[in-house]
């Protein structure tokens, strides 16, 4: 497909959008994993300091 003389603008716009969407998806996945790990760690920790 020939995008003509404005190809850098068109591809730049799509490239930027793909980057932002991928960053949103990656953040959603990584943030969820981090919270799940933290929750699992807190659930597994023995109740320290109890007599």
């Amino acid at each position, binding site marked *: 497909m020939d995008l003509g003389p404005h190809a850098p603008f068109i591809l730049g716009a799509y490239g930027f959008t793909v980057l932002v969407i991928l960053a949103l998806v990656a953040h959603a996945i990584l943030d969820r994993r981090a919270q799940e790990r933290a929750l699992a760690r807190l659930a597994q920790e023995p109740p*320290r300091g109890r007599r």
Partner: protein
Amino acid sequence: MVHTLCRTRLRYAVLRRSSALPRGTPARYTRVMAIGLLTRLAQPGHFMRWSGALLPWVAGLAVVLLAVGQYLTWFVVPPDYQQGETVRIMYIHVPAAWMAVFFYGAMAVSALGTLIWRHPLADVAQRAAAPIGAAFTLICLVTGSLWGKPMWGTYWVWDARLTSMLVLFLIYCGLLALWRTIEDPNRAARAVAILTLVGAINLPIIKFSVNWWSTLHQPASILRMGGPTIYASMLYPLLVMIAAASVLGIALHLQAMRTEILRRRVRTLTILEAERLDAALMAPQAA
């Protein structure tokens, strides 16, 4: 969800037979049932269950719609007689603009939920929506700028539509900063909710800026009296892309809300753990 509705109906039928409910019209019972169902679905525990079941389907639908929308954008949409191939930027710019405004509208509704009903899920929904809305606003600004250079001869003009979209982006950034500034979550929720409602005045300005002022940005061409001004071969792919962006946004929002609920559980458990440790340290000193 159907199961919950059935259970709610059954409960009301039992209550009705045992005269535990006051007499009233069937419409009133339907209204009470609907409110009851919504209240149940909005409880964080219930939300985690139904959103967990729904999320894979919503994400899958977003991928399918994006694939179809991109196929139509690149292989079906003809070049515009004036814009040429540059018109293809509109198939991400317009959906991004719609999502930027949609998420702010959703945040304004959530802000009312926080201030009036003090519903815990309202603040969760608002906080989860802000980064997604900001990201779509940034996409809208950058893609519009990349379209403007070849079409208008400039990346940016201080035109009412462009400026009001920039203001929307700055409001999103301000809200995200405010959440980080105030440590107490309840105080942060109220402050952010008030600021969100104040910022909502920008939404009609964005929508009607092209009518109220003389702008370089074109007037509305889809949502307007008299119907869309875009030819069908260009309009339907655009609508598919708008639907794809909407479903993708909903999937990201559901996921972000689930993560936010987990984050609050982690915070509560961490505070409880710290209080236990404090008590354990203080106990020998007291003895």
